[in-house]
């Protein structure tokens, strides 16, 4: 039993949850008043959009690509949500559907022309930002009432962000890790040649993953305006790096189709918590990003140590 608990495999799987727990314990130690329904709600409220963006990034990483436009894309969908969707729901829905279709199209383009995803998505990030500025030149707009109502949901005993995170993690886990087509999709990341040889369409797989990423990007944008109630083209610029960091913190790897939806959600929670933790430590916001990076490096260094023990 002890041998099993100290095996690299178990440690690696437990690392995301462990780092989250350690961080939470540190917060409660520094600021005991955070240990309340209201405190948790406040600390974790932005995990929902971050977790959704992280899941979107995870879909892309599963097929060995990287999305550098997810932040800008979330910003765009937030702008659409706060303008078109609020004013003319039908048009707004169509616009958001077009965004998802555009993501699927990107996947097809990247596969078909064998382009580096980093270059394509970096270029697209400016396109998304440009469209967002066209739609909403100055910060403003209003989130649709039902989005605000959903994000402001008060659940007894357990804060809403935690329930939402669990639901997101489980739904994606079942879809990607338990379903039979999910195995094929992850196989595309592991050994695309083998999956192609078994008669599966790699184009379809890539398009599916990109469309799923686009869909979760839309959800992320909507949940974000549900919290802020107004939008801005730059509202989610940081999400690109948050999403990548969340996937990696959650035990995912950049290549090889090794990802974990539950881990990615925990990674997003951890990222959201580091911000609060640093505030409680009275570290000035100017230093927070650097300190966040420091925490990230510590966790990833731990993982590298575990991996080295395995080798």
């Amino acid at each position, binding site marked *: 039993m002890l041998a099993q608990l100290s095996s690299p*495999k178990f440690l690696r799987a437990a690392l995301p949850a462990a780092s989250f727990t350690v961080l939470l314990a540190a917060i409660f130690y520094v600021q005991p008043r955070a240990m309340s329904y209201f405190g948790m709600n406040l600390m974790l409220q932005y995990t929902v959009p971050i977790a959704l963006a992280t899941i979107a990034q995870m879909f892309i990483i599963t097929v060995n690509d990287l999305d550098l436009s997810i932040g800008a894309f979330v910003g765009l969908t937030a702008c659409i949500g706060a303008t078109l969707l609020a004013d003319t729901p039908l048009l707004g829905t169509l616009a958001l559907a077009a965004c998802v279709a555009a993501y699927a199209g990107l996947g097809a383009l990247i596969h078909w022309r064998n382009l580096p995803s980093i270059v394509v998505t970096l270029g697209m990030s400016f396109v998304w930002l440009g469209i967002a500025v066209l739609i909403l030149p100055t910060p403003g707009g209003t989130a649709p009432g039902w989005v605000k109502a959903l994000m402001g949901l008060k659940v007894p005993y357990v804060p809403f962000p935690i329930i939402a995170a669990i639901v997101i993690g489980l739904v994606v886990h079942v879809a990607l890790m*338990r379903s*039979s*087509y999910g*195995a*094929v999709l*992850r*196989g595309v*990341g*592991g*050994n695309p*040649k*083998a*999956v*192609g*040889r*078994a*008669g*599966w369409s790699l184009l379809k797989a890539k398009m599916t993953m990109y469309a799923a990423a686009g869909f979760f990007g839309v959800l992320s944008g909507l949940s974000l305006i549900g919290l802020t109630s107004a939008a801005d083209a730059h509202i989610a610029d940081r999400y690109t790096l948050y999403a990548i960091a969340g996937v990696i913190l959650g035990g995912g790897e950049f290549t*090889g*189709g*090794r990802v974990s939806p539950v881990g990615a959600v925990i990674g997003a929670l951890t990222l959201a918590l580091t911000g609060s933790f640093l505030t409680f430590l009275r570290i000035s916001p100017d230093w927070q990003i650097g300190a966040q990076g420091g925490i990230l490096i510590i966790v990833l260094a731990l993982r590298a140590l575990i991996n080295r023990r395995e080798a």
Partner: protein
Amino acid sequence: MNASQSHIVTLENVTKHFGAVRALGGVDLKVHAGECLGLVGHNGAGKSTLMNVLAGTLSPDHGILGIHGADLSGRYNVKAAGENGIRCVFQELSLCPNLTVAENARIFHPTLTGFGWKRRAGNMIREKLDEIFPGHGVHPDNVIGDLSIGKRQMVEIARAFTSTGAPLHLVILDEPTSSLDAVTSGQLLDFVRKVVNQGLSCILISHVLGEVLSYCDRIVVMKDGLVVETRPGADFTRDTLVAAMGNVVEQEEIEEHERREIQRGTTPIVVEARSDAQRDGAALVAHRGEIIGLAGLAGHGQTRMLLKVYDAAMRKRKSLKVDGPVALVAGDRQTDGIFHLWSISQNVGVRSLQSMIRHGLIDPDAEAALGRAWQARIKIRTPDMNDNILSLSGGNQQKALFARALASDAEIILMDDPMRGVDVGTKLEVYDLIREEAEKGRTFLWYTTETDELYNCDHTYVFRDGVIVADLPRDQLSEEKILHSSFKESA
């Protein structure tokens, strides 16, 4: 059942080219129902290409491809192969390392969906593993990446024999025993015999001639993209099989080279290296001014040996003796050799930067002069050495890489199968250049997969499974000997 239907596969005059390289030059092949067909041949004989054609992963340029008597030429692909019950276990593993054993089984079977698919896939693969490899020790929930290479190969083989829906007719096994130990190899081959007797057909490609001779009903020998012999297995012996694979060496060429042979051992030893796996103390020894050949089947440790020598020279490690600066001529030009964005001159000069430094910077005139000198010397065909390296043909790119090594101060030149995909004219020019440089005192370690090139060498070491298995002076060199050493007697 009429005659054509008892043939599972009929190939007629199938050809396949990769650019200018002819991989298959008109192959005829028939596979009967319920037979085990052995397929042997040296590196590059076209076996793997042929198997890819049968598996539907490559489509032939010309020729007729019939399955169960129906002509499917031009309409054959992976899906059609699956529907007709044809499976292939590829030489490089086709499993996804991030998935479990059961999930890998699922990828193979499009119909394995719905609730409980993981359990069904797991049971299916476990039953097959139990049947072929009793006591395998593989669990369906094991992640492939955590399994040893031998177990991965067992999973891959077992997966090929599972079926859902379409009945299985032909299983192609490309080097199935290469990662298996003697016991599991025996289990697999006995299983193959059993299913063949039940009416399934198998194609067995193996470098272990003992396996092919004792388990196959019929043996097909391929050479240079052609089928050169087809006979019942019982009609072959090990010696006749090796003879059928090899080619008759052009005697004149040998004699010409022999004339120039230097007496081994008259010059000091500059390289003495052993591979880690070597048990019997045999070492690769090179004297100054010698051309040493590294032979054997591809990927049996020759490149590793070259890199070891290279490392030793760079880090001055004591375990090997490497006396003098070294330079490496890469075989895989595109990934290991050329700098894609640089000019030809820059590509040639990069190994000699030390000698071109003036005031701490690279002297462009010296670089251009070096480029021009080697353009004339090695005949790189280009109007301007300042053009991008990619403007050259493959052969000329390779010449630029030779120029890089020869222009440097290196006394020992390591060559990692550098003539891959190079035309004959260029080859002959480079052979002469190597001979010329060797006479001036440079030493060459030359790994090649082309047996004919070994006749340019003074001494040849044959590698198998990472160790030296034969040590052939020039006068004893023959293709037959190399083949004999390259192929194991039995697993």
